[in-house]
């Protein structure tokens, strides 16, 4: 990297400076899920025994568990999936393999050629460690660790082991068990006490870089009084030949600390996106999830905050956009396990062209969590009669002295709003795009600038219906 690049440029344009161009291929483990595959993964990664055991136990747990009976319909043959693919020296996918509609989307987003290929996961040669490394230079002085989870296991084994699988145990659900068995990649972040990271840590690139493994595992530890904003995922449509993405994300927010975790995902329309995300927030700590879901065939994702000590705060802002052939089963969970804790969920969904969105949310107040406050606002926007929206709010309150609020509204794209905008000369597409963009404005304004711009452009493309 050029030395005259300012720090800000390094961060903002990290993916422009840090990818290479030689072609690489993949190593594929055999299709299917069994002990041999898991041992192979552990061998290749040269993992410690405890991790190998962790994986094997998880496999048993996965095999034991039935498929969830709620949420969307999952029609998957788990033996027909590659569980581990690793960049090696040959046989890469080529740009020609990228579906036309994704290419067109890139074009319309105005993304340069090299970056397009990179975003599409074609140029998987990208060496994540280089990027992580350059970030580390800036942050290392403050003691921040930011690396991929596999490296963390090698380089910070004690720290990793202390927290790994403690927020989301293997047996939490069938897909956390699956991830625990075959996980690969993901981000590991540790922020030492009192350190505030001013700019968002971005892993804009990461899933692409790791596009071989669709089972990433992220662990973030924000120590006392520290703060971090982590931005993950990709606002460009993702291309993958795999049919399943199942991540586990664990976040620990210690006393007086703050963490914001922003995700914008736009998967190809044949992907099952089954993700488990949970944070533990301790005394007076704040955890915020900002979660945007576009694309995928089925998404089941319910970011959670468990408020473990008094004064903890959990906020979840969730947006789902579903179009033809898609089901977004998205939502949020807030668990008040201590008194004087505060939680807020704002969920917005948009359904179009026969798409289906559901909000599935849990608010739980444990015994003893008195003086807890919680509010849920849940708005659904349905753009046409073929589309569908459902709300499944679960509220379990086991304490007397609490404040719980739930508001839900479902609207057709406001006929009156539409007429108002049309009567001022706007076209139908302009009007509906404006209404939809306005509807998700609360999320977009929370995003870093470049994500906000791209999110708006993506929505516009979705609304024009010509791509995706």
């Amino acid at each position: 990297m050029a030395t005259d690049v300012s720090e800000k440029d390094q961060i903002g344009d990290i993916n422009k400076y840090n990818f290479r161009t030689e072609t690489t291929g993949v190593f594929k483990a055999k299709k299917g899920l069994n002990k041999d595959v898991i041992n192979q993964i552990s061998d290749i990664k040269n993992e410690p025994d405890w991790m190998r055991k962790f994986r094997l136990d998880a496999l048993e747990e996965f095999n034991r568990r039935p498929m969830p009976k709620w949420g969307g319909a999952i029609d998957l043959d788990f033996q027909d999936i590659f569980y581990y693919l690793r960049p090696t020296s040959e046989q890469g996918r080529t740009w020609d393999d990228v579906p036309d509609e994704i290419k067109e989307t890139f074009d319309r987003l105005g993304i340069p050629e090299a970056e397009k290929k990179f975003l599409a996961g074609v140029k998987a040669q990208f060496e994540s460690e280089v990027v992580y490394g350059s970030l580390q230079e800036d942050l290392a002085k403050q003691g921040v660790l930011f690396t991929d989870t596999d490296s963390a296991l090698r380089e910070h084994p004690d720290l990793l082991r202390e927290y790994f699988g403690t927020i989301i145990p293997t047996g939490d659900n069938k897909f956390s068990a699956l991830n625990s068995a075959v996980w690969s990649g993901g981000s590991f972040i540790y922020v030492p006490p009192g350190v505030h990271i001013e700019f968002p840590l971005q892993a804009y690139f990461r899933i692409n870089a790791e596009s071989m493994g669709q089972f990433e595992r992220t662990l973030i530890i924000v120590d006392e009084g520290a703060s971090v904003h982590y931005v993950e995922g990709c606002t460009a449509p993702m291309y993958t030949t795999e049919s399943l993405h199942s991540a586990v994300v664990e976040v620990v927010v210690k006393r007086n600390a703050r963490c914001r975790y922003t995700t914008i995902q736009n998967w190809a329309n044949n992907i099952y996106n089954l993700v488990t995300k949970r944070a533990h927030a301790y005394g007076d700590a704040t955890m915020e999830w900002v979660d945007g879901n576009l694309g995928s065939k089925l998404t089941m994702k319910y970011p959670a905050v468990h408020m473990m000590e008094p004064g903890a705060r959990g906020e979840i802002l969730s947006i789902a956009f579903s179009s033809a052939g898609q089901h977004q089963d998205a939502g949020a969970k807030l668990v008040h396990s201590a008194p004087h804790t505060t939680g807020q969920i704002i969920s917005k969904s948009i359904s179009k062209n026969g798409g289906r969105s559901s909000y599935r949310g849990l608010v739980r107040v444990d015994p003893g969590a008195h003086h807890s406050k919680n509010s849920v606002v849940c708005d659904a926007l349905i753009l046409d009669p073929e589309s569908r929206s459902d709300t499944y709010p679960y509220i379990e309150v086991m304490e007397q002295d609490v404040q719980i609020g739930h508001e839900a509204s479902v609207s057709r794209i406001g006929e009156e709003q539409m007429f108002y905008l049309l009567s001022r000369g706007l076209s139908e597409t302009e009007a509906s795009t404006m209404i939809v963009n306005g509807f998700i404005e609360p999320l977009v304004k929370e995003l870093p600038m470049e994500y906000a711009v791209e999110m708006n452009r993506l929505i516009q493309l979705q609304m024009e219906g010509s791509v995706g």
Partner: protein
Amino acid sequence: MSHVLKIENLHVAVDGKPILRGVNLTMNHGETHALMGPNGSGKSTLGLAIMGHPNYEVTEGSITLDGKNVLEMEPNERARAGLFLAFQRPIAVPGVKMADFLRHATTNVRRPDRKEGEELIPMREFRKELKDKMQHLRMDVEFARRYVNDGFSGGEMKRAEILQLAMLQPKFAILDETDSGLDADAVRLASESIAEIGGRDKMGLLIITHHDKLLEHNPPEYTHVMLGGRIVETGGKELAEELHQSGYDRIRTSHPEADARNQEMLSEETEVAS
């Protein structure tokens, strides 16, 4: 340039219920018309039908603008052709900034053939014009950054409608109770503004009002009284003054049939509302 908006024998139904039963009205460019009448007589219905609200079904009659069939046009085509309705109750569009909305609207109305995705009026040019017009209307520039009608007071909504009128410069504007919800000072300001924007020779105005304040600076050449879904009387400025002073008793007595229908419509409206 002379323009004509012509409404002939217009019948309009909502949910299958007839509201307008044969309205005739011809407006020439540059004229100001007042449309008065008791609640439930169909005044707003006329405005919404002219603008093409999908719930307002024209069952008979015609609307033409310079001889062109307005009824065949979508609402946005009507706007681009030069029609404007200042809504009695403008709807909020959360998350959409006034300025963005107005830039799209202004571009489309000024360039009626604009295709989707084509350039908007250059930002700098648009901003300057918007700022000038807002200052003229004594509106805080901050207003342009707020979301369309979202959390606006009644007065702010009405002023936002007048701002749109000023930006879009239609051939014909229907102002549906633009004075309601305004205090005396605000009505005076609105009245002056409308006179400036839409005054003599600039456009045709159809002012729907219960009061004569809005007419102070916009004296109507014609006053129409609607009752039971029909225009039952047409007069000059003095008719508006009379109605304002003495109410609708004389009108009701002179047109018992229309009055009965009006009562009926009003009770149905209340039923729906409750």
